[in-house]
């Protein structure tokens, strides 16, 4: 049975829809109201507050911490400056992705790793020979994502400390409602946004302070349904949906390399040994079989298919994540793994894995749709994600845009 997060007394009172789902063993809100759209609109035009406590969190400390993280992740963690956050993935010996997450460098030898899957055992297994202590702080830390164009103003109002100046993919300590917290300028919406890491026992104090500060800035509590639309617009992949952890795959064909899921930019090959390096080098040379692409699904064609039945075009209001075939010239060349209508961009979008020879932006493919119980194909054009990439995501007021920021 899933557990309540430390925010449950507040979130359950607000969740009038009673729409919940399980996320990493916790109860998580799908949408607070029957329909998630106001929450989605809040993220894109004001701000949304999302409980992200179910993320796994690990503190990695000790003289060998940097070397250790350089060894286990595909990213050159040594390059992270103090106070910087890096996004990346870690692979098995065959260069297949196990999980993706962030690494925050708090100090020379003090890191925090977040992940979507439990990773303590795997990290510990590889720690042998490194002078490093790994602590699973998943349950000690509650976490909130505050995302959207007014998130900076809200945090500035709520916090002591100059959080407004925090650049993209940077981290700082701050005080909020009398509580010491960690703030990272990160998120899963592709918008201006922050994640706030809070000692579990102070979770409600911080939640209340943020709610109070958020009110004049149009903030709404936000559930996973709204997040799902945002992350498709932002082109962010989801483990278990757009790719599968090699740890869980039953057959080789289900596994993916970082290059195949759009994470090639997080792989730093020009350095000493790290897990999966040889396989990744070989794949880099030989080329990858698959590529992760964005698809923009043709609206007119879809409209005509519905019109043939005398119907107006209908789309699911939520994001979808049931994989559907992608074709070209009568051949299946991949699958779209998740998608959503973007109310902001007025586009029908999908993320897809396609054979890499069909992955060039502008390529016209066809995606399977079901119209009145009949399977049909409509054209879809390959796009390079993100679909939505506002300047505010990475800009910081009264300072130069951070060039040392994150790629995505």
């Amino acid at each position, binding site marked *: 049975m899933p557990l309540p997060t430390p925010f449950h007394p507040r979130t359950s009172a607000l969740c009038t829809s009673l729409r919940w789902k399980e996320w990493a063993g916790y109860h998580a809100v799908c949408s607070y109201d029957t329909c998630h759209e106001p929450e989605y609109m809040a993220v894109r035009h004001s701000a949304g507050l999302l409980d992200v406590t179910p993320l796994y969190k690990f503190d990695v400390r000790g003289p060998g911490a940097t070397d250790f993280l350089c060894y286990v992740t595909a990213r050159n963690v040594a390059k992270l400056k103090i106070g910087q956050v890096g996004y990346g993935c870690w692979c098995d010996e065959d260069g297949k992705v196990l999980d993706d997450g962030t690494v925050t460098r708090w100090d020379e030898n003090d890191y925090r790793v977040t992940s979507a899957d439990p990773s303590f055992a795997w990290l510990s297994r590889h720690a042998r020979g490194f002078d490093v202590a790994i602590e699973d702080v998943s349950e000690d830390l509650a976490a909130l994502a505050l995302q959207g164009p007014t998130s900076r103003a809200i945090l500035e109002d709520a916090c002591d400390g100059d959080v407004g100046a925090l650049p993209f993919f940077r981290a700082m300590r701050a005080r909020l409602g009398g509580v010491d917290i960690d703030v990272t300028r990160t998120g899963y919406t592709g918008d201006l946004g922050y994640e706030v890491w809070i000692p579990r026992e102070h979770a409600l104090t911080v939640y209340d302070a943020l709610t109070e500060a958020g009110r004049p800035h149009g903030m709404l509590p936000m559930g996973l349904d709204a997040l799902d639309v945002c992350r498709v617009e932002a082109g962010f992949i989801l483990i278990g949906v757009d790719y599968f952890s090699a740890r869980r795959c039953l057959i080789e064909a289900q596994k993916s390399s970082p290059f195949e899921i759009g994470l090639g930019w997080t792989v730093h090959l020009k350095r000493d040994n790290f897990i999966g390096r040889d396989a990744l080098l070989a794949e880099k040379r030989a080329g990858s079989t698959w590529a992760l692409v964005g698809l923009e699904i043709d609206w007119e064609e879809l409209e005509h298919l519905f019109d043939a039945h005398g119907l107006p075009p*209908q789309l699911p209001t939520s994001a979808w994540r049931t994989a559907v075939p992608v074709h070209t010239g009568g051949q299946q060349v991949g699958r779209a793994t998740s998608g959503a209508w973007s109310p902001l961009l*007025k586009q029908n979008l999908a993320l897809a894995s396609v054979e890499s020879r069909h992955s060039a932006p502008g390529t016209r493919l066809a995606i399977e749709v079901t119209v009145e119980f009949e399977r049909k194909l409509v054209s879809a054009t390959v796009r390079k994600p993100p679909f939505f990439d506002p300047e505010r995501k990475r800009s910081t007021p009264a300072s130069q845009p951070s060039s040392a920021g994150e790629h995505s």
Partner: protein
Amino acid sequence: MAERWDAIVVGGGHNGLVCAAYLAKAGKKVLVLERRDVLGGAAVSEEVYPGFTYSVCSYVVSLLRPWIIRDLQLPRFGLSIIPLECAFLPTHEGPGLARWGDAERTRREIARFSAKDAEVYPEFGKTMVQMARFVKPLIDAPAPDPLSLRPGRLAELMRHGQRLRELSQEHQAQLSKMMTMSAADYLDEWFESDVLKAPMSVSGIIGTFLGVRSPGTAYVLLHHYMGEIDGAFRSWGFSKGGTGQVSLSIARAAQHFGAEIRTGVGVEQVRMAGGRATGVVLANGDELDASAVVSGVDPHRTFLGLVGEDHLSEDFVSQIRRYKLRGSSGKVNLAVDRLPVFACRPEGDAHLRGDVAIAPSIEYLERAYDEAKYGDFSKRPYLNVVIPSLVDPSVAPPGKHVISCFVQYAPYNLKEGAHTWPDRREAFGDAVVDTLAEYAPGLKESILHRQVLTPWDLEQEFGLTEGNIFHGELSLEQLAFQRPAAGWAHYKTPVRDLWMCGSGTHPGGGIMGASGALAARAMLGTRAS
């Protein structure tokens, strides 16, 4: 040699800009001239009071055509629409009526007034959607013209006839009722509760000098359901940054495609030579040459002003003179230091995240019309109120709000003459604030700034003749092949090389952009999709 343009668009309203964007996209050298310093015409955002951005005139986006959004890639140029989540009618007794996107919640709300209406409401919606499928091709293409025997026009007419035949007999009957009945009578056939019928009926009268009991007003009810048949596009929404952002996103698209836009440049007249338009004469006396001139201003201003009667046939002039503009509405914009609290529903703000109608009964609306018929503004008017800052904090300082009140009736021709409006302006503003404050006590104390726009002001400041927000009433005899005049409904004018692209052409009305786009297509000689 002087610079020469393929087309000069007179007026930087949203239709003029759409027209310019399509012409530029087709490779034409286009210049848009806007008299005011700010683009958008009546779809304009202005910071009238420091820190508060008003959607000064038009305040919601209704039927901006999806194909225009796609063709011009408007989201890329800054268009962002936030849907209205609720339609709220406050009442003096009980909690009022809120209609939500959530059908079950709406059913319970309506059932408080009538269990029968609560069940019929979705049936009504379904019927409207089915019939709107017939109407949609009408607004996305040039008007079918039963007066024309040209093969292309006849084929068009037959296609529409075909679609009409595809409607069931019952729907054909419904459609003919909607074309002829009043909104109030038509709704009487479906519903029994006044509290439901009154706010629904007003869509039939907005921008017209008619009452909810006037025949022909039922048809516009359909427009409310048009958005439904655009699939995911949704119908009514706020534009982030105010409605001016719609215009600005179109302007950016137009510039992207190569159009040039100049503001603060008034056009005095269309220059004529040998019976054709050859350019424009500016207010400062300068002349600009163009192969074609496109007027985005209303038909009166275009023909009786820019062209001049001397260049037109007597018959055409009298047609244009008979074309009814007679504005019937005004606008009050408020900057407030807190969110208004409606006494009937003081908790929460979800019911304020859409529009709030002050339309407590059909009788109330009809009485409001009575005053206007005899040359006065309604002391207790119909109000359509929105608080866009609730969902778009960018238009007001944190915690503060802008309130936009659309007000009907405010007849252009007051008993003592339209020119007496400036003396009545503040009394009109008071009537609006008093009306709203009856439902939201404490409103007056919260007001930081008030902008009152009478029909006179809409004419003087925005160039809307007689203050008509649609460049001419959307009454049946002025729609489709008769907009603005029989025989001249296809964006062409009796003056060679002079075209029309404003709301005074088919289909007109609201921030749709269809008039501008269809005008451009007509000029380019391309078929509508």
